[in-house]
């Protein structure tokens, strides 16, 4: 059970990272709020 929980947590991390990276590659976020893009992500692009 605990293993499944950790796997789900990792999956959510993957989804969040994907969302962050795809937004970084786009012109802007899809809503009217744009948080400051981290330097780490700017370097990766």
């Amino acid at each position, binding site marked *: 059970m605990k293993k499944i*929980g*950790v796997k789900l*947590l*990792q999956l959510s*991390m993957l989804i*969040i*990272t994907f*969302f*962050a*990276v795809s*937004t*970084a590659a*786009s*012109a*802007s*976020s*899809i*809503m*009217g*709020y*744009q*948080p*400051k*893009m*981290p*330097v*780490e*992500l700017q370097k990766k*692009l």
Partner: protein
Amino acid sequence: MERLIQKIIKTYKKHDQIDQSQEAILEYGIYLIFSTILGAICTLGVSILLGIFSIVAMILLTMSILRYVSGGAHFIKMGHCIFMTVVITNTMGLVVQYIPISFGGIFTLSLFCFIFALRNILRYAPADTPQKPIDNKHHRKKLRQQSLVLICIWFIGVILSFVNDWKTTSKVLLATTLAIAWQCFTLTPKGYQFYAQIDTFFEKIKGKKQKKEAL
């Protein structure tokens, strides 16, 4: 909001090894997901109450897709963004639902909107912000081209509807026209000015509230 995000990151840290760069990316991603989900829930929730869910969903989707490639002005706070998205999209929804415009009239509006969109995209897209600057020339060119392609596909759809006299699509056409017109307005310097003025207005209200509470 800040506390909630830090709590989520702590949970990730407990169960998985993440370094500083991963943490920064996660924080950014969580902010984006929260603002998107909260914005969509509030906007669509109000639209359900007003009985214009499908129209507002269409407007929101059109604006989001175009904003993704063309960029545009942004609010400085998530709350301002959510409130204004609810107001703007639902007002547009009410216009589409209750103001009768002939099919020919909608086509004329769409044509003007297409010209307005072309002009603004060619001049200003991708419109970036200090929070997320786009410096790469190649990237900028690609995003501008994608915006142009999207607008052209939309207008081909409009022409097809008009030529085939698909009157049932009139609400869809008007909804997408208004959404594109607004989104293209946010690309312009006047659009940026408008968003900044709204931000200042909200900050003033907050300042007054805080003063009252302090007294």
